[in-house]
């Protein structure tokens, strides 16, 4: 990225690649209300959107689905068959409420990144994925202690059966760190980093296109601008896929953690 910027900078007069500072540190929408920034607005909008669409679909569900219900049911089925059932088995239905909420909310958060005008993935601010990951983490520990007992939970986690005795001494700290600290951290950071990087890339290429085709149109710069536009279009497609994929993975990991707490298998 920095290398690219250096290469391109001389071509356009004063082209500067967008810095994370510009892209992610956004000013308040209403001057003075410091907390009311674009991500906050979009987070609220996402919640309203998720509730609105789901309400339209499932408030009075029909036996034979039609219209919105059909579409949202597709999402519900996806979560049930790809996320809940593989990891929770017969407990899947009890956790569908949580998993559907998480999946839909994260999906809309992410998709905000490619919606024209809005164009900001909410999850690229770490606070939002962190909150969800924290809730899941709390639930995981709570369920683990509830279903396996306080001692049993940590014993099952840190002393997986089937290992030679002395090696436990070396492995137990790894298991603890991996399960209790790294897992929730990566849960949030994976989503955050993907959205952050995706937004950077999109912003960079669209900026290139805009700069070289509209701001400073030169014979030399025009092809670069075209490349920027083409890349923006291609990356938008890729980004939509990644946004969906990350929402799926986030929900899947949530299901995995819950399932692991309900039934320790190893």
């Amino acid at each position, binding site marked *: 990225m920095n290398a690219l910027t250096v290469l391109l900078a001389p071509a356009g007069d004063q082209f500067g690649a967008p810095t994370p500072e510009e892209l992610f540190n956004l000013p308040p929408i209403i001057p003075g209300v410091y907390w009311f920034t674009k991500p906050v607005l979009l987070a609220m909008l996402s919640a309203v959107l998720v509730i609105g669409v789901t309400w339209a679909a499932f408030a009075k569900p029909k036996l034979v689905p039609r219209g919105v219900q059909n579409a949202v049911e597709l999402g519900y089925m996806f979560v049930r068959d790809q996320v809940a*059932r*593989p*990891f929770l*088995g017969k407990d899947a239905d009890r956790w569908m409420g949580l998993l559907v909420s998480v999946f839909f909310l994260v999906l809309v958060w992410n998709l905000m990144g490619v919606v024209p005008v809005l164009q900001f993935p909410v999850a690229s601010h770490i606070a939002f994925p962190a909150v969800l990951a924290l809730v899941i983490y709390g639930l995981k520990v709570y369920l683990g202690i509830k279903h396996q007992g306080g001692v049993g939970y940590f014993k*099952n986690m840190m002393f*997986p*059966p*089937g*290992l030679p005795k002395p*090696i436990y001494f*070396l*492995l137990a*700290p*790894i*298991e*603890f*760190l*991996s*399960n209790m*600290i*790294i*897992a929730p951290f*990566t849960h949030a950071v994976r989503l955050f980093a993907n959205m952050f990087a995706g937004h950077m890339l999109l912003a960079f290429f669209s900026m290139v296109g805009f700069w070289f085709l509209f701001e400073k149109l030169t014979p030399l710069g025009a092809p670069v601008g075209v490349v920027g536009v083409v890349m923006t279009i291609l990356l938008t497609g890729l980004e939509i896929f990644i946004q969906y994929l990350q929402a799926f993975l986030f929900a*899947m*990991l949530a299901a*995995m953690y819950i*399932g*692991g707490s309900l*039934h*320790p*298998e*190893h």
Partner: protein
Amino acid sequence: MSAQERRPENDGRDFADAMWSVPSSLLAGMAIYGGLGWLLDRWLGMSAFFPIGVVLGVVLGGYLVYRKFGR
């Protein structure tokens, strides 16, 4: 523990479990034993234990994943 019946869908669960616990186990191993080595280095004024710890951690993390899911 393994009293829980094995349904076919649990195979997918095992696979995903393994996939997700490989990096985090390796990372945890590195962090713990690398950190231990680093502390030891500082205490003894040496610089050998940190790399040893990191390598040991990776090996242990890999071994752990292998024993849990490899068979």
